[in-house]
C-alpha cells in the first residue's frame, strides 16, 4: 500500500519526457513534482481519503503513465524495456483491487456499470503487452511490495542481442557515410566501406536473432524484432549492402533439361510403346445388340472393329 502512496506523490503531469531512440529506460526520476494537485483529490487530505477513491486515483495515474510511455516508445518500438515499470505498477494496482473480492470497493469500482472502465483499460494494457510478446524479453519482473520499486531482469539472449545491436550501430556510426538517420525517407546511398566493415557485426546480429527465433518458438519480444527489422532495412534498403544474386546460366540449363524430359518420355512412349489391344467380347444375345440401333453401314463397322 505504501507503494501506491509513494506513487501518488508523483505528479500526474509529466514535463519534458526525454526518451532516446535507443530504448532508454523510463526513468522515474525524470518526473519532478513540480505542479501540485489541481484535482478534488487534492482537497481531501491524504490521511482521511476514501480508500476507494485512492485506488481510483492510483490506477488513473499509473495507467496514464503507461499510456504515455507506450506512445512515446512506439517509434522506434521499445515498449517492453521502456515501459516495463509503469506496466507492472498499473497492472499490480488493478490486480490488488481485483483480488479484494467481497470488499465493497471492489464491487463499486469494478462491477457497477456496463462500461467497466477500469477493466477495459487494464485489458487494453494487457493486450498491448501480450501482443508485443514482451514477456519473452524478461527473465523476471517483480514489484517490491514495500517500496513499490519494480525490479526486472532481461533474458540473457536479449542482453546479448542488445550488445550485438549496439556494436553494429556503433560500427555504422563510426564508418563515415553510413550514418543515416533511421526513417529518413528517400535516402539511398550505397556505401561499400560500411558494408565491408560492418558485415561481421551484421552477420552475428542476424545469426543471434535467428537463434532467438528458434528458441522462443516464434514468440520473440517485439523490441528485438523491431531492432532487427530496422537493422535489416538499414542494411538492405538504405545502405544497399545485401547483394543477392542468382546465376542464370546453370538455372536455365537445368530448366531446359527438365523440360525436355517429359517431351522425350511421351514421344518415345508414343513411338515405341505398344498400344494395348482390346478384344471385344461377343455377347450372348437373343438379338444382336449394336446392329439394332445404327444405320445400315454400321454392321460392317462393328465387325471390323471386333476383328482388329
Amino acid at each position, binding site marked *: 500500500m505504501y507503494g501506491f502512496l509513494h506513487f501518488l506523490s508523483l505528479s500526474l503531469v509529466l514535463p519534458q519526457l526525454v526518451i532516446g531512440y535507443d530504448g532508454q529506460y523510463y526513468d522515474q526520476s525524470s518526473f519532478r513534482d513540480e505542479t501540485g494537485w489541481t484535482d478534488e483529490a487534492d482537497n481531501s487530505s491524504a490521511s482521511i481519503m476514501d480508500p476507494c477513491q485512492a485506488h481510483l486515483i492510483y490506477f488513473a495515474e499509473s495507467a496514464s503513465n503507461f499510456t504515455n510511455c507506450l506512445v512515446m516508445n512506439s517509434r522506434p518500438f521499445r515498449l517492453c524495456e521502456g515501459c516495463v515499470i509503469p506496466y507492472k505498477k498499473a497492472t499490480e494496482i488493478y490486480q490488488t483491487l481485483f483480488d479484494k473480492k467481497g470488499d465493497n470497493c471492489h464491487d463499486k469500482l469494478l462491477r457497477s456499470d456496463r462500461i467497466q472502465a477500469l477493466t477495459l483499460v487494464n485489458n487494453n494494457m494487457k493486450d498491448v503487452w501480450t501482443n508485443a510478446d514482451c514477456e519473452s524479453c524478461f527473465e523476471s519482473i517483480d514489484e517490491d511490495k514495500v517500496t513499490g520499486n519494480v525490479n526486472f531482469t532481461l533474458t540473457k539472449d536479449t542482453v546479448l542481442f542488445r550488445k550485438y545491436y549496439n556494436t553494429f550501430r556503433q560500427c555504422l556510426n563510426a564508418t563515415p557515410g553510413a550514418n543515416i538517420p533511421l526513417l529518413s525517407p528517400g535516402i539511398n546511398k550505397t556505401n561499400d566501406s560500411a558494408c565491408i566493415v560492418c558485415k561481421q557485426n551484421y552477420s552475428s546480429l*542476424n545469426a543471434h536473432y*535467428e537463434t532467438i*527465433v528458434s528458441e522462443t518458438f*516464434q*514468440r*520473440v519480444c517485439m523490441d528485438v*524484432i523491431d531492432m532487427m*527489422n530496422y537493422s*535489416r*532495412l538499414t*542494411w*538492405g*534498403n538504405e545502405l544497399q549492402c*545485401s*547483394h*543477392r*544474386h*542468382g*546465376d542464370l546460366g*546453370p*538455372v536455365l540449363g*537445368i*530448366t531446359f533439361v*527438365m*523440360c525436355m*524430359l*517429359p517431351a522425350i*518420355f*511421351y514421344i518415345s*512412349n*508414343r513411338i515405341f*510403346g*505398344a*498400344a*494395348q489391344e*482390346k*478384344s*471385344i*467380347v461377343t*455377347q*450372348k*444375345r*437373343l*438379338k*444382336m*445388340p*449394336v*446392329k*439394332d*440401333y*445404327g*444405320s*445400315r*453401314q*454400321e454392321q460392317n*463397322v*462393328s465387325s471390323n*472393329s*471386333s476383328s482388329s
Partner: protein
Amino acid sequence: MTDGCKQRMADTEDERKPLLTQKNYVETTLTNRRRNTSSVNFADNDIESDCPSSPDVTRSSEETEPESPEKLLSAKFESLDYDVCENSLYLKEEKKKTTQEIIRKEIARWFVSLLIGVLTGLIACFIDYMIDKCSGVKYDYVREYVNKCVENFCLYTPFLLWVTFNAGIVMFGAIFTAYGEPMAAGSGIPQIKCYLNGIKIPRVVRIKTLICKVLGVICAVAGGLAVGKEGPMIHSGAVIAAGVSQGRSTTFGIDFKVFEYFRTDKEKRDFVSGGAAAGVAAAFGAPVGGVLFSLEEGASFWNQGLTWRIFFASMSSTFTLNVVQSYIKGNEWELSNPGLINFGKFTDSKYSGFEIPIFIVMGVIGGLLGALFNQINYMLTIYRMRYVRQRWNQVFEAMIVAALTATAGFVSIYFNNDCEPMKESSEEAPVQFFCDDGQYSSSANIFFHTPETSVKNLFHDQAGSYDIHTLGFYTLVYFFLACWTYGLSVPSGLFIPCILIGAAWGRLAGIFFDYCFPDQDWTDPGKYALIGAAAMLGGVVRMTISLTVIMVEATGNVSYGLPIMIVLMVAKWVGDFFNEGIYDMHVHLQGVPILGWEPPAMSANISATEVMSHPVVVFRTKENVGRIISVLKKETHHGFPVVEDYDPEDSFRQQFSFGTFHGIILREQLITLLKLKVFEENPNIHEILRNMKASDFRDTYPRFPPIQQISITPSERKMTIDLKPFLNQAPFTVSDNASLPRIFHLFRALGLRHVVVIDKKHQVIGMVTRKDLARYKIWRHHGQISMEELQISHS
C-alpha cells in the same frame, strides 16, 4: 421433321426386322411397341429435330467409337450381391435365432462403427504427421541451401537438391503403387463410389491396398506433387471398414472368430459406406459432410438407422483426430482442432446481396475451367492407358512430373521476385531469396509449403500479401501441374489442388475488385479466394450437397453456405454442358459398369428380351457333377438358374427357352458343394446334410477358391447333386416384356446381381446382369442427348 428424315427412320426400323426373323414369337409385340414410339431414334445425334444430314456422317462418328476406351465396358468387373440367398439352410438358421443374438448383432454393429471411426482417425493422423515431418525436412534443407547460395553464386545446388528430393520421394510412392498395388493409385473416390454402387472392384478393399495407399500418399505429398491427401484418406477409411467388420484378414490368414455374421456383401457395404464417411470426416473435419458424401455416392441403399450409425463413425473419427492432434500440438485434450485440413476460421464473414451476381459469374468461370481441366485430363488418361503401361514406365513418369513440379516452383521464384515486407512472425521462417533483408519472397512463400498451408495462406493472408503476377503465374502453373498429376501411378487426392487453383484465381478476382472499387470494405480477397476454391472444385468434381457441406464445415462458417451452394451449382451446370465430372470420367474410362441414379432416358421402349443375355446356362435340380464342373470351367457366370424339364442335348428347344424356373444357384455355392462332396451317391450324404450350416458358405467369403482347385475323381464326376436345398427359391424375376427402366430400378434399388427373365409359361428365357443394363449409355454433349450401346471388352 422433314419427310426425308422420316423416311430414313422408317428404313432403320425395317432394318431391324430381318435380323430377328427366327425369334418371331417374342419379336412381334416388341416391334409394334417400337413403331408407336418412332419419334425417339437412337441414332447418334437427333433427339431434338435434326435429321442426320447423311448416313456417311453417322458412320464416320461411329467408326471412331470402338477405339475410345470409355465406350467399352470391361469384362473383369463383377457385381456385388446384396440379395440374401434364402435357401433352406438360411431359413433353418433364421429359425434358431434368439433375442440375445439379435441384440448382440446390433451392439456389434455399433461397436464396429466406433472402431472404424477411431482407426480411420488414427490413420489420418499418421498420414498427416508423416507428411508434416517429411516435407518439413525437405523444405528446411532446400531453404538452408537457398540462403547459403544466394550470396555465393551456387543457386543450382538448391535447385538440383529440390528436384532430387521430389523425384526421389515420389519414386518410392510410385513404386509402392505400381509394383505394390496398382489399385491404390489415384484418389480412391471413384473406386469407393463404384463399390458403393455395387461393383466388385478387384482388390479395392484389401489391407495391402491400404498399406500402399497410406505410404504412397505420404510420399506423393511430401514429394511436392500437386496432390492432396483427402481422397486417399477416404479410401483408407473404406478399407478399414471392410477389414474391421469382417473380423479377420484373409491376406495374413488370421481369423479372430468375431463378426462372422457380417461376412456378406450386404453388411460389408454398410460398413464401407461408414468408413468412407469417417474418412471424409477425418480429412476435412466435416462429420456431416462425410455422412452426406456417403449418401450422395452410394445412396441407393440407405436407411435411417444406417445413417445414424455412419454419423456415429464420422463423429468418432473426428473426435479421435482431435485428441491425437491436441497431443501433437502440445495442448492436451483441447478439442478444437477438427480436421486435417482446416481452412481456418473466417472471422469477419460478411457478404451483401449485390455480390451474388459476382459469385454466379465466378461459378461460371469455375465451371469452364473445370471442364477444361477434365478435358485435358481425359486426353492424358487415354494416352496413359494406351502407351504408359509398363510399371517402370509409370514410376518414371511420376518422377518426371515430380521433377517438373520442383522446376516450376523454382523457376517461378527465381524469375518473379515479388518481395513483401515481413509483417509478423509466421509459423515458419519465410524464404528471403533475392529480396532485401527485412523482406521475404511471396512467390517462394507459396511454393515452399505443403499445399494445405498454401491454401490457408491464400484464404487468410491480409490483402496485399501477394502480387498479381505471382498469383496469375501460380494459377497457371498449378492448373497444368494438377491436371498432369491426376492419373499418375501415385495415390493422389484432387480436392486440395483444385482448392488451391481456385483460391489463387479467386484471390486474383478479389484483388481486381479491390482495384476497381477502392475504399470498399466488401472486397476481401480471402472471401473471394474461398468462393473461387468452391467454384473450381465444383467445376472439376461436380459433387453437390456433400461438397457444399464439406466446405461450410471446413471453414466453420455457416453464413457462406448460400454463396458456396450457388457457386457449386452454377459450376456444375456449366461444366456438365461440356463433359462429365472427373470421377465419373475415370470410372467410365476404366469401363466400370456403374449404374446411374436413373435409367437412361429414352429407354422405356427397350424390353427385357433385348436387354437380357440369351442362351442361358442352366442346371437341373438334380444335376450331374461332371456337367457342373465342365460348365463352371467353361463359363464365367456367377449365377445359374435351376430348372426342370430341361435337356442339355436338345438344341432346338434351346433357341426359345430353358425349362421351368425353380430358383438360382450361385457359383460359390456350387464350389462349396463340390468341395464338401454333397453327392447323392455319397454313402454318408445324410450325415453331411445334417451337419451343413449356412456358415459353411460364408467361411470362404470373399475369396472363393476357383473351380480348378477342386479335386474331383472320375468316379465322382458321374454322381449327382441335389441342388434343391441350396438354391435361392424365390429370387427376383421379371417377365419377358418388362421394360428396361423397370429392370433398372429393381437392380439399383435392391442391389441385385442377377435377374432371371421368364415368359408366360414360367420358362427361363434369359438372364439380366449389371453389364447388360450398364451398356445402355446416355451421352450428353453440348446440349445434345443421345443413347448408344457399349461393347464389352477383355482388358
